[in-house]
């Protein structure tokens, strides 16, 4: 029983990490069609932001809370620069974005190595996040609980933004029909920039969050990018609710598989499940109904 609860929570927690990593991607990949391979490196930038902030503010609790908006800004600005310098020129060549952003990812990794060194750095968890609470005898790590909360908060913020603000309405209009939105007076240029800023900023927040559970190294992003794409593709392109369901489903499935087999086999099984699922339902859990003519 204790183990069952521990494992269920491990699954939810893994799901929340996946969701955080994938949320921004579901915006940039799902809504804009840009395959941003540097998304993981934006996470890495967020993680190093947490490290830098902690060097400046020694209180780990305060620095974590400052790091979250700071990570969002750093990720977002990196995204803006990438959009303005490179991606803007290739919206009509989506496959090229894959190669270009992969190159950018390598450059960012090397930059991190040059600035911070190859060894991983230590970002301390604040005292109030150390240890765990007991739920029916199963230890629930506080850091994991914090990440779960943070990802739900980000999700709520994003949904609110998209559904309840003029900015969100414009973003959705551009996704549904770019030409019609443009003729109706919506600046698609500004909408693209903002979408990319927010999507990349979310990657920055995800990076801050994962410093609490893993290592902060130049390769941090490579650990998450594949899983993030899997979540977005399985959830259905352009569908935030699909990404949420896919993230938690994959998280729980992976902990079940890993528990009943081994970590490596668990990973294989999860990939098989996704491949089979996409064979049966290539559009993912939900599919986007657009009014564009293509």
């Amino acid at each position, binding site marked *: 029983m204790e183990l069952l609860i521990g494992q269920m929570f491990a699954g939810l*927690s893994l799901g929340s990490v996946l969701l955080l990593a994938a949320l921004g991607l579901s915006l940039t990949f799902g809504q804009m*069609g840009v395959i941003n391979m540097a998304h993981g490196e934006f996470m890495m930038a967020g993680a190093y932001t947490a490290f830098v902030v902690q060097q400046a503010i020694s209180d780990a609790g305060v620095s974590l809370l400052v790091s979250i908006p700071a990570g969002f800004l750093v990720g977002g600005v990196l995204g803006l620069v990438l959009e303005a310098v490179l991606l803007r020129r290739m919206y009509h060549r989506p496959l090229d974005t*894959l190669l270009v952003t992969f190159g950018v990812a390598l450059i960012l990794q090397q930059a991190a190595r040059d600035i911070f060194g190859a060894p991983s750095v*230590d970002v301390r968890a604040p005292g109030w996040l150390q240890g765990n609470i007991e739920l029916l005898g199963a230890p629930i790590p506080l850091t994991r609980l914090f990440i779960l909360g943070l990802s739900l908060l980000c999700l709520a913020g994003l949904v609110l933004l998209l559904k309840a603000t003029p900015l969100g309405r414009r973003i959705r209009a551009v996704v549904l029909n770019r030409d019609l939105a443009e003729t109706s007076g919506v600046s698609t240029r500004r909408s693209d920039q903002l979408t990319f800023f927010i999507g990349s900023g979310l990657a920055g927040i995800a990076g801050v969050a994962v410093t609490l559970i893993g*290592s902060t190294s130049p390769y941090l992003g490579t650990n998450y990018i594949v899983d993030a794409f899997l979540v977005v593709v399985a959830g259905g392109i352009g569908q935030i609710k699909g990404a949420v369901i896919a993230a938690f489903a994959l998280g729980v499935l992976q*902990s079940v598989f890993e528990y009943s087999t081994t970590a*490596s086999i668990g990973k294989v099984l999860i990939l098989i499940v996704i491949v089979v699922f996409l064979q049966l339902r290539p559009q993912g859990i939900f599919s986007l109904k657009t009014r564009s003519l293509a």
Partner: protein
Amino acid sequence: MRVSVTKRAFYSLAATAMATVLAGCGSQIADPASAGSTASSGTSCVDTSGSSIKVGFINSLSGTMAISESTVFDSLSLAAEEINASGGVLGKHLEVISEDGASEPTKFAERAGKLIQQDCTAAVFGGWTSSSRKAMLPVFEANDALLFYPVQYEGLESSKNIFYTGATTNQQIIPALDYLAEQGTKSLFLVGSDYVFPRTANKIIQAYAAAKGIEVLGEEYAPLGSTEFSTIVNKVRDSKADAVFNTLNGDSNVAFFRQYKSVGLTADTMPVVSVSIAEEEVPGVGLDNVEGQLTAWDYYQTLDTPANKKFVAAFKSKFGTERVTSDPMEAAYTSLYLWKAMVEKAGSFEVDKVQAAAGGVTFEAPEGLVTVNGENNHITKTPRIGKINAEGLIDTVWSSPAAVEPDPFLATYDWAKDLTK
């Protein structure tokens, strides 16, 4: 997008993205011997006519292993500098050529081939993971060149072209098990990265445990570089084992220890013995997370020997006082001096003469006096169990009474008979 893309195109793009990433991760299997096949075997192009002699360093300065291997590169550089300052080897100045193995075994094999054939180095120093060593072995054998490998490893190997200056299993893992048994450990849980060293090490541990009545309650592997340990940590916690034997490598240790601590497991309730965490890795893992945990090595920075004091002082003055020294770094430093001693005993840089002279060569290393075993090309070492202290250094809590002869095939252990078949 300015031009609308159909949904179908999206999925194929997504698939391509995935395939690219997966291909990038999986490109580590290739025929390692091919890197050495272009040279006819046995012909050496080493130039001994000038006032300098070339040596090669091969370490991962990028990729997941850079965290560890860049430190070995630093200590090799220190040894080369010291040797040059004291007149070189046979009066020749060492000219170092460095290559990046980039944490990929195929890259190691390819770069080793370059160091031997194009750069014509007299000997090559480096390598860390067993996969990188196994990839380089056929290259060094085909070219009849010399590799000095400075890291503890899983044993069961011996090549006349490789000198192993790190511990083999009977100088690290078996003493660690002896120590645990002595402390009354009745059950163990094994956690490791999924590759050669942990798998072989755990086979040896299983055989030892079966022979000595220690129960192994679980054996779990995480993919190399993995950062998700919730499930493994839950399994460990649930097993209620007396101790954990940890053969994880690289950054995975950070995630493992953080998550280990966050479910309330500590050094007091369930100690972890690690064979891949040295002084250098402690800050990255986070001292909070590993203080009080055990390590098994043959060298610690805190050792009180004159050679070690000199080594530590020289290292800190070259690289900064905040830097630390670790077992693989010491073994790498020692390896360059051992090669120097072999060459001087042979009076030649020629590989066969160096090989012939190797047996019995000694060096007063920071870890104590080491002697090269001419039969298996390993060296004698003194196993030590350490405990990570509040400063992030490691204190010796147990030490073998005398230096232990290397026995890579465990021929002198009855319980290991089935392993070497």
